[in-house]
């Protein structure tokens, strides 16, 4: 499927996708709606905003047509955040802190938390961090709550993780940890 939308049209569609997600419209149905918009816009030459109005209002119309009741913001946040997600978030934070603290001490030549050897703290932190990342990636890929936006024409995921996004997500923490090592070395 070639690119058929220009950038402002794509921005409108991206906004619509977000609004449909916030209204709890299922991923397969979101794919249908986006494909309908693409098809209609290609046929008429109209801008999506002209044909479909503001994304938020159109998302409401679609959700109403499907009989999906609106959910309040707080109810939505509570409904989409499980205890397990919170636990993984806390563990990720602790793992990140332990890794950084261990690496800093290793570079600085000190002992680390509670007088433990720096390499042990860094390794344990990295292990926890890796496990949390794996759990996050697996859940995003094929968890029960993944609900991908599928293109009804090809069955393809319409919003795949691009290489750039993966590089950014993985690269930023690695960069920060590298800077921690440098910081530790400088503190010698």
């Amino acid at each position, binding site marked *: 499927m070639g690119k058929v939308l220009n950038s402002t049209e794509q921005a409108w569609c991206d906004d619509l996708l977000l609004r449909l997600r916030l209204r709890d419209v299922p991923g397969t149905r979101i794919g249908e709606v986006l*494909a309908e918009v*693409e*098809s209609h816009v290609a*046929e008429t030459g109209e801008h999506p905003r002209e044909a479909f109005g503001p994304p938020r209002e159109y998302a409401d119309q679609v959700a*109403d*047509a*499907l009989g999906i009741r609106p959910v309040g913001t707080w109810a939505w946040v509570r409904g989409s955040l499980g205890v397990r997600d919170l636990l993984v978030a806390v563990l990720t934070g602790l793992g990140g802190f332990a890794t950084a603290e261990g690496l800093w001490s290793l570079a600085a030549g000190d002992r680390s938390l509670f007088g433990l050897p720096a390499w042990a703290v860094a390794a344990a932190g990295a292990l926890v961090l890796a496990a949390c990342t794996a759990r996050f990636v697996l859940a995003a890929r094929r968890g029960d709550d993944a609900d991908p936006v599928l293109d009804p024409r090809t069955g393809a995921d319409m919003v795949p993780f691009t290489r750039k996004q993966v590089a950014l997500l993985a690269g930023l923490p690695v960069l920060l940890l590298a800077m921690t090592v440098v910081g530790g070395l400088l503190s010698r």
Partner: protein
Amino acid sequence: MTEERWPGEWMRGVLSLCVLRVVADGPTYGYAIAARLAEAGLGSVKGGTLYPILTRLEAEGLVSSSWAAGEAGPGRKFFTLTAAGGQALHERAAQWRVFTERAAGLLASPSVPA
């Protein structure tokens, strides 16, 4: 030909039935349905109005849909009347006829000044 604009509340009342009627002529897609409605004199119907109606009709089981690849571009979603849709169209069109006749009858009656 001037662009017809009908009151929104009238359109909301009858558009779904008219869309069902257009789909009854054979598998058709969004843009063609809008064109057929305009040709029938119902004015231009925006995509933002039309597709939620089709979505609702599909959710009610009155139409079914399938995607067909276009020669170029993003393809078309074709809508087909289901058996239940044919039944619903028959019933609602008959009801609508009675309703509009009664309304027209009332509106045509000479007003008596008090």
